[in-house]
């Protein structure tokens, strides 16, 4: 079955990079793109994707807020955060907002495909870049 994916990041270049990483899988379809949280909510409502790949830091509405609202208004979607914030605190916030996955941008080439695969099957996938001292 096709997994329908929405890509959300304020940098078109990053969205382009995400596409090149995901396009190898024939059963995955990128159904749309958004550049901030508000646009993401609109596209989630109209396109009903299975997986939302979401950046954290974006203008107008950030990803954490968008994730909360996506889960509240259109439950049934899995959210995978893709972020530069290599921080346990941000990871906790993402999970509290209802995300199923969290990967750090510096490790995307290694982690993204595996993470999308996991969350599309409703399995959690979280990976920080390096272990932190608490």
């Amino acid at each position: 079955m096709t997994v329908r994916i929405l890509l959300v990041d304020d940098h078109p270049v990053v969205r382009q990079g995400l596409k090149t990483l995901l396009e190898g899988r024939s059963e995955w379809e990128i159904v749309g793109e958004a550049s901030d949280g508000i646009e993401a909510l609109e596209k989630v409502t109209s396109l009903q994707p299975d997986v939302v790949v979401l950046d954290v830091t974006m203008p107008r509405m950030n990803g954490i807020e968008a994730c909360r609202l996506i889960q509240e208004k259109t439950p049934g979607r899995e959210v995978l955060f893709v972020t530069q914030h290599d921080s346990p605190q941000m990871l906790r916030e993402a999970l509290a907002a209802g995300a199923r996955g969290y990967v750090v941008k510096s490790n995307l080439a290694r982690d993204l495909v595996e993470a999308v695969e996991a969350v599309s099957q409703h399995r959690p996938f979280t990976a920080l870049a390096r272990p932190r001292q608490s």
Partner: protein
Amino acid sequence: MKLRILLADDHEIVRRGLCALLQKREGWEVCGEASDGREAIEMAKQLKPDVVILDIGMPNLNGLDTTRQLLQYDPQFKIIVLTITDSDQVIREALDAGARGFVLKSDAARDLVSAVEALQSKRMFFTPRVNDLVLRGFLDKGHAISRNEPPSLPILTTREREVTQLLAEGKSSKEVASLLNLSTKTVETHRSNIMRKLGLHSIRDLVVYAIKNNIIQIQMPAQPATTQTTVV
């Protein structure tokens, strides 16, 4: 003959996106990818690309200092800098360093191909958001545009700027020494010279100086996050 492009950005996902953009053009080839300024310099010397695209906010050696060092080595290099900010100060520094192209990362999908084309035909390219006056002022008067500001950067030598960035990134003198192939003692001499020249007293002061002068860049977390962390 192919147009050969060297790409330097510390984020692989950004490099992927840029490669995809550039390689859509027939006859263009990304001949190398570097993840920081030091690597970019080594690769540029070796590969002699037609165009070099450098992110400004890279670890170990930022894009502006990479530009300066590359042009010192060979003034023929054609360099485009990619930036997340179009502040006047960064634009002036990029011009001053000798970059011929200035593209905002957020506009790269639209502007980067045009920038490479411009450089290829010996023109300059600045993102349309750059204030014309800033640009004209700089080009007409040379460096005069910044005459009202203290010349904070030229005080330091190239080596001292490298050391400043590495120390501000949190590296120890020993780590800096190993990265630059110097003795720890030499690094410590550079460090005390830097502090003396800039009138600073602590590494904390040095970090502030490095941020203010675009030697390092900071990334802020999302606004409503309950825990405020700053990633340098």
